[in-house]
């Protein structure tokens, strides 16, 4: 190894090849470049010609330089240049890599592996075998790996298979393993530690010191492991605590809460005081948010120790109280609901209401105070709800004591029993310790809780099993019965201070919380059920299927749980209910590693020496390619160089175009829209809400041309007149305006979709049946989306004063349509000037009014969606094939028919251009013409 400061050569012998460079130079000078090939017709004149001067063609100096550089790059590459070289490992024996791979090694694991690989590189350079060992117990399903001295390549492979484990290290076992392996004492040991002290550290340190050299690699502040403890619920917040091994100044860590999909739902910063090892933070977690949280993580740690899985204990259960909210009725301190609400509110999401309101929700626990005793019907519903998994907690009181209530876990005696009081010589009773089968087991009982009145249970053989709490005299205070999936619980005293002071004590809160926990399905009867591993964490804190060999946990394992290969941290239980066992609260608080005396230390680092040979090889390859291109060019075999330069942008553009053009192709291959024949089968309710799709034929027919439409009434004469009238009007439009309507369309609202037509003419007849819901919906939708209907009552002026009230058929037919209020058309309405300037609107008859939508131009931009006239307009417009009027027009004759046409033209223009002519821009012209 040749060391040149920051630069070294691992194989300096190869540099001797540089001596060959002058030879290469000379050779390159000697050999002329290959000739260009030129086609030449007059070659006959050239044959036999030789230049008089025989100086060979010289290679251009820059090509010579390029080729020499190429040779130099190759020679340097084989000499294996190294940037920032590190000294050879001390000693002569094998390299022993002792790697802490417990949970604490997850932060900075990649750095750790890089560091180890670099050490292996150094060992390889000096040809020393490598021993790789982890200190944590291997997982049960790990393949058996070769131990002992390995060749560096094998060691590297083994190293890459290393993963941090989600359990602590066992250094004593590692020390014992070293003894068993009989490692060469001349070995140089490097301990890539996680920086934490544990019980076996001393044994391992002692063992490692016996080797010829020992170096301990310590993590720096960033890669020092942190432990996240399960959070404590504090009211609406979660109090989050994290531990660090050493108080090395202030440090800030970010905690993020994620839901079960991995989405981050909350994030807080957590500060370690400068001299403390514990950092605290408060994670605001309202009920909805808290229920979504599935795990907490310390950011950028990524290990099992920095992850906390949350289970039902950390969720806020939806709890309902049957009754009225206390504040509403006054005197809250007398009301049971008040005490229940106060006891539970911070911990659960509460709702208060009657049975219909609260049971409809996804309620987990239902609290039934005595004051709101359920009716028999309610009792039935509640019983059903319990069967399907609910937990109902009843409180005794005067109502229950009156008897007749069957929704109780155990039969009750009629009446109540008072203990103490003015008329009694007994004393109010205190609570006995909770029995072991009770969910309350373990709650300390305050001395001052007194029960002065209770209801009594009939003694039955199974009463003892059903009793979860009893008084010191043995009478049950809380009885419960498992019904189906759920529980029915009865507290034999009141939820307020009427019969006891239980409601005032902290015990009441604890007991209610335990009862709420019941609803998660794993307590109670299942308390003795073993929990099988369901999802477990790996060393990087990722949740996954449990490893092979993971064992069941006893239900009371919360205290005894020890993370290890058979019991990794994770969720235990089944898909219905899981209990989280986290690493944080089951390992000792982290303490800094005591470095064994006599060992050198180093920090974990990523940087180090860099092998540059590949870069030199790359440079040589690039130079070679350049040389190839230049040679081709010099020989004239690359004559299109210019053209190539021009082709590059074109090729780029082509590629770009290809990219752009691809997505439409992909879309073109999407399956075609399903045919619309199913439309007829769609239920009418659907048709009312969403516009049905059109077939292509329908759409094209309606959309390619402007078409006037009329509604088919079923009366053949009227329909024929409508058609003839609209044909006549269309003809007039074609002749006089730029509107060129195609043939009119007959609309059967039950079948056809009106939305394609700008104007629909609707003659009212007495014979037309009421609109079907589907037809009404279609019309409604048409009006709402901007369509215009011109309704012709054809009754002359019989009903023009009250258009809807007057004509019974109109009223009947428009019944299903949401009608806007109507007003008589003002004389300056845009309809009077949208094409012709008109003063009256005759049809077959004269006079009458046009009724339009009220709103004074504010609604729909002043365009009335409904117009109602009465003068049988289609009759006036109707023409025969020779263009003569079909029906007589009175009293004005042909002049009036002309005016009717003009009105029709204005109507269509109004439908097509809206309030365009109302624009003030035209007012001057219009006024001038009006005056004239």
């Amino acid at each position, binding site marked *: 190894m040749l060391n040149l400061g920051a630069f070294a050569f691992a194989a300096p012998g190869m540099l001797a090849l540089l001596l060959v460079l002058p030879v290469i130079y000379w050779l390159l000078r000697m050999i*002329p*470049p*290959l*000739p*260009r*090939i*030129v*086609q*030449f*017709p*007059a*070659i*006959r*004149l*050239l*044959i036999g*010609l*030789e*230049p*008089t*001067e*025989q*100086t*060979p*063609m010289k290679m251009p100096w820059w090509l010579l330089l390029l080729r020499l550089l190429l040779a130099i790059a190759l020679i340097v590459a084989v000499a294996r240049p190294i940037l920032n070289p590190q000294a050879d490992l001390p000693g002569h024996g094998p390299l022993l890599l002792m790697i802490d791979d417990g949970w604490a090694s997850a932060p900075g694991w990649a750095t750790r592996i890089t560091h180890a690989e670099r050490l292996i590189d150094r060992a390889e350079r000096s040809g020393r075998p490598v021993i790789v060992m982890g200190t944590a117990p291997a997982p049960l399903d790990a393949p058996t790996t070769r131990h002992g001295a390995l060749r560096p390549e094998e060691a590297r492979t083994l190293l890459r298979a290393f993963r941090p484990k989600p359990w602590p290290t066992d250094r004593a076992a590692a020390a014992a393993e070293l003894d068993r392996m009989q490692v060469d004492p001349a070995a140089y040991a490097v301990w890539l530690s996680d920086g934490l002290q544990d019980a076996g550290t001393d044994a391992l340190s002692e063992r490692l010191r016996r080797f010829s050299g020992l170096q301990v690699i310590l993590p720096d502040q960033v890669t020092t492991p942190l432990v996240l403890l399960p959070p404590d619920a504090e009211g609406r917040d979660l109090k989050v605590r994290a531990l660090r091994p050493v108080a090395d100044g202030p440090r800030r860590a970010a905690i993020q809460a994620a839901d079960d999909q991995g989405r981050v739902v909350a994030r807080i910063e957590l500060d370690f005081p400068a001299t403390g090892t514990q950092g605290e933070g408060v994670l605001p977690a309202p009920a909805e948010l808290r229920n979504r949280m599935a795990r907490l993580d310390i950011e950028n740690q990524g290990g099992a120790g920095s992850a906390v899985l949350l289970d039902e204990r950390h969720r806020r259960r939806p709890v309902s109280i049957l009754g009225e909210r206390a504040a509403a009725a006054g005197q809250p301190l007398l009301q049971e609901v008040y005490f229940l609400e106060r006891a539970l509110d911070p911990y659960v999401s509460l709702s208060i209401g009657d049975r219909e309101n609260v049971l409809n929700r996804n309620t987990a626990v239902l609290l039934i105070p005595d004051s709101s005793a359920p009716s028999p019907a309610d009792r039935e519903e509640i019983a059903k709800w319990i069967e399907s998994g609910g937990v109902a907690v009843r409180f005794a009181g005067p109502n229950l004591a009156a008897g007749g209530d069957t929704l109780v876990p155990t039969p009750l005696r009629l009446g109540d029993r008072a203990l103490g009081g003015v008329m009694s010589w007994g004393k109010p009773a205190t609570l006995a310790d909770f029995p072991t089968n009770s969910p309350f087991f373990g709650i300390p009982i305050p001395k001052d809780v007194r029960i002065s009145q209770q209801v009594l249970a009939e003694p039955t053989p199974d009463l003892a099993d059903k009793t979860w709490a009893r008084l010191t005299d043995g009478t049950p205070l809380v009885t419960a019965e498992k019904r189906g999936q759920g529980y029915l619980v009865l507290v034999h005293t009141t939820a307020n201070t009427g019969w006891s002071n239980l409601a005032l004590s902290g015990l009441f809160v604890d007991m209610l919380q335990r009862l709420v926990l019941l609803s998660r399905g794993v307590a109670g009867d299942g308390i003795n059920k073993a929990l099988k591993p369901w999802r477990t964490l790996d060393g990087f804190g990722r949740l996954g299927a449990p490893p092979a060999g993971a064992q069941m946990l006893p239900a009371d394992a919360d205290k005894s749980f020890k993370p290890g290969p058979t019991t990794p941290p994770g969720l235990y239980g089944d898909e219905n209910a899981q209990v989280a066992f986290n690493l944080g609260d089951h390992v000792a608080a982290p303490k800094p590693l005591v470095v064994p005396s006599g060992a050198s230390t180093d920090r974990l680092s990523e940087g180090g020496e860099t092998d540059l040979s590949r870069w030199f090889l790359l440079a040589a390859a690039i130079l070679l390619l350049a040389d190839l291109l230049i040679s081709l060019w010099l020989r004239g075999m690359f004559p299109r160089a210019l053209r190539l330069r021009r082709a590059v942008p074109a090729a780029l553009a082509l590629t770009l175009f290809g990219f752009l053009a691809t997505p439409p192709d992909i879309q073109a291959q999407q399956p075609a829209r399903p045919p619309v024949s199913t439309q007829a089968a769609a239920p009418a309710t659907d048709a009312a809400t969403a516009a049905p799709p059109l077939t292509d034929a329908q759409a094209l027919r309606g959309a390619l041309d402007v078409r006037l439409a009329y509604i088919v009434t079923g009366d053949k004469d009227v329909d024929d007149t409508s058609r003839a009238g609209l044909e006549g009007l269309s003809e007039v439009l074609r002749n006089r305006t730029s509107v060129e309507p195609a043939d009119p369309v007959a609309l059967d609202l039950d079948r056809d979709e009106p939305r394609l037509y700008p104007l629909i003419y609707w003659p009212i007849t007495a014979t037309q049946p009421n609109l079907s819901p589907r037809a009404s919906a279609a019309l409604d939708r048409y009006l709402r989306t901007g369509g215009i209907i011109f309704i012709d009552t054809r009754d002359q002026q019989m009903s023009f004063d009250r258009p809807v009230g007057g004509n019974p058929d109109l009223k009947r037919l428009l019944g299903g349509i949401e009608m806007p209020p109507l007003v008589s058309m003002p004389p300056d309405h845009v309809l009077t000037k949208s094409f012709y300037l008109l003063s009256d609107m005759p049809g077959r008859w004269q006079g009458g009014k046009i009724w339009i939508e009220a709103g004074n131009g504010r609604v729909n931009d002043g365009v009335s969606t409904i117009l109602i006239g009465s003068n049988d307009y289609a009759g006036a417009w109707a023409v025969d094939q020779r263009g003569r009027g079909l029906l007589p027009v009175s009293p004005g004759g042909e002049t009036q028919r002309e005016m009717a046409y003009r009105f029709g033209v204005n109507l269509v223009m109004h439908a097509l251009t809206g309030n365009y002519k109302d624009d003030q821009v035209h007012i001057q012209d219009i006024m001038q013409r009006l005056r004239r």
Partner: protein
Amino acid sequence: MPSASVLNRSLELAETLPALMVAADRVAATVIQGVHGRRRVGQGDAFWQYRPYREGDSVSRIDWRQSARSRNLFVRETEWEAAASVWLWRDASPSMQYASLRNLETKAERAELITLALASLLTDASERIALLGSGLRPSTGRIAVRRVAEALFAERSRGAGPSSSLPPLVPLPAHGTIVLVSDWLDPLDQIEAMIRHYASAGVRGHLVQVLDPAEEDLPFQGHVKFEGLEAEGQHTIRRVEGVRAAYSARLAAQREGLQRLARPADWTVHLHRTDRPPQTILLSLYLAMADLRRLNAA
């Protein structure tokens, strides 16, 4: 497959034919402006002069309208137009398919242009023309130009089949004229044999040498391997700039030899480079032909 390729080629030719004919016509039109009629009495359509009636003149030749203006009878004389037969030929050998720069025409294209433009000029002057070696009798009028063009392209579309770089030796009637367009880079003895063959038959000839600028200047540098276009072999020269002078001498010697061969037979030699406009060569060629004929007539 062959049908497709033939179709493609014929389409290609059909496209170029009008373009080339238009180009040839344009060239011819610019040339003709500088040329005038023969100014001699003869058979032809163009009016030349009136002269007084002489005895023996056919009565039918009297121009009665002119005669009515005066007392004398006038005879209308038309200009003499002696139609001669001209055979055209251009070299279609591979060595002509060469252009040293991309924006230059190949020698073959230029040769075809000259041939067609000359054909157009000659037929305008009512000469009878034919393509040498096509086997057709000389004819005149636009149809003759078209026939020449078709013969040219028929040859081209047949591929470079009989493409010798020397004209075919066919028997021609005496007093005919041939115009030969080639690069004339063949050995002089072969050219001499050809000239001798035609000169002995009393045929006048005009040689047009079309050369690419690169063939004249030899602009290459350095180490170059030259390849012939007609399988003449290869020749590598270390330093082309070193032989440039010798090459120019050889080219000059070739031209000199060409002149030497042409002079005794009273033929003319015209030089042309493809980077020069074709009008000049056409004009000199046309004048040379007119000159000769006027001399002959005198």
